[in-house]
């Protein structure tokens, strides 16, 4: 059987908190037997979406979109900019086809300077993921400024919650895959 293909996306080109959190997500994935790839948008030069099909891009843009399209599981890390997700992350969504997340399980880690932004995942990010047909892990992890020190997460509770998020995400993906295979076997073609 193929190993589950997990992509961890750090969705910002600014700051360090989201990348720090997603490094932790990569570590939490270690106890599972999966193929995990970290994509930090800060490491790539990605074009603005100009409406073409994602297969028609090249370079970093093609690499990032193709890697996401090939994933079974996507763990998205995002900061809050101007009370919303950063344009860099929205651009990744805009580069992908309409139903890009069909049959994929998607989870969210949000970092923010203030607890006042807590509902941005539910109000702004999840509607996009839903539209793109993701199976969304119900809970997400919200990490605040005070949980970080010197590019480390110092709040033990965040570590527990990140591990739970990773475990729940993989379980959900595996379960949905089994259910889908069961359903598809009924079609008999």
């Amino acid at each position: 059987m193929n190993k589950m293909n997990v992509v961890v996306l750090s969705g910002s080109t600014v700051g360090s908190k989201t990348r720090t959190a997603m490094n932790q997500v990569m570590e939490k994935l270690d106890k599972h037997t999966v193929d995990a790839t970290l994509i930090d948008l800060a490491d790539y030069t990605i074009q603005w979406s100009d409406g073409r099909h994602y297969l028609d891009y090249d370079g970093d843009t093609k690499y990032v979109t193709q890697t996401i399209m090939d994933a079974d599981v996507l763990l998205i890390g995002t900061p809050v900019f101007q009370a919303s997700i950063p344009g860099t992350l929205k651009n990744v969504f805009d580069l992908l086809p309409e139903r890009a997340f069909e049959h994929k399980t998607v989870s969210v880690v949000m970092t923010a300077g203030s607890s006042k932004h807590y509902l941005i995942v539910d109000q702004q990010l999840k509607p996009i993921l839903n539209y793109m047909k993701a199976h969304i892990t119900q809970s997400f992890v919200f990490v605040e400024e005070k949980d970080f020190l010197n590019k480390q997460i110092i709040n033990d509770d965040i570590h527990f919650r990140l591990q739970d998020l990773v475990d729940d995400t993989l379980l959900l993906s595996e379960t949905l895959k089994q259910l889908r295979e069961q359903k598809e076997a009924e079609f008999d073609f």
Partner: protein
Amino acid sequence: MDKGRFKSGQGLEFGLYTLGDHLPHPETGERISAKQRIQEIIEVAKLAEQAGIDFISVGESHQDYFATQAHTVVLGAIAQATEKIKIGSSSTIISTLDPVRVYEDFSTIDLISEGRTEIIAGRASRIGLYDLLGYDLHDYEELYEEKFELLRKINEEEVVNWSGNFRKSLKDAKVLPRPLEGKLPIWRAVGGTPASAMKAGYAGVPMFLAHLGGAASHFKGTIDAYRETAKANGHDPDSLPIATAGFFYTAETTQQAQREYYPHINEGMKLTNGRGFPKQQFAQSADIRSVVNVGSPQQIIEKILYQHELFGHQRYIGQMDFGGVTMAQLRKNIELIGTEILPAIRKYTSKGHDE
């Protein structure tokens, strides 16, 4: 019905189309040569003609996994190899070609085929060809509208005076040779959305509507939008032919047809579109209300008649060769079409069938 070459009361035309895809077989992973693929397309046209199929068309795509970039050349070969079957493109990407050269090619094919040739002009769902052929993607819409209009003008007028943004002006230009009957049927290729269909309606141009999947009733909405827009703009909807195009595959039983075709569509779409075809959606083809014409001959007959009742269209064309379907399978399909499907469709859609 004066536009196009449809006689009143003739019944629904049945055709086949290929995008000219050149994909590996989903199970073996092996791909035939481009030479073999092109020759098989020509062979299918001959077999289709022998089976009594009305129409065959070849598409233009400029990207990996396609072999008919020069689709007019392939159509020329089909014109020479056949005698009765109507010939067209599915579609010609007029946006990135010179309408003068397109018209010269198709008129010539029309003369070779002795008046059997039609143009279906689209604007490409994939856009790699803009770079390849030297066009700017920002002009996507303007390119199509301007060049499509010029193509129609060349068809209507033997001496053309024209100026636009994307081509040098034409002054008293004669575009030769002229087709056998003076004009060619020219269709506007339309995707699934009502907005796209309405554009064909504004101009009063025959519409070729592609439908990949979903409920037939959904496409009825698009066709209604086309006819209403045409009427509101002073065109007679009854004079405007409509054709539909979508996946087609038949075998002894519906289950066998699904089994045989699904891997080709799923794997082929992964390579050309980046996403497979959801199995759940494909399974709906067993329902008469789904627009995907995959099933036993009887099932397909019922589906096509159901669609004809909904759409009132003049022609349906099926895509049965996508994703590395073998020549043996294509032969079998054509045989079932000729012996079972065509006689029933003609019987039930020709005028006066129930008298």
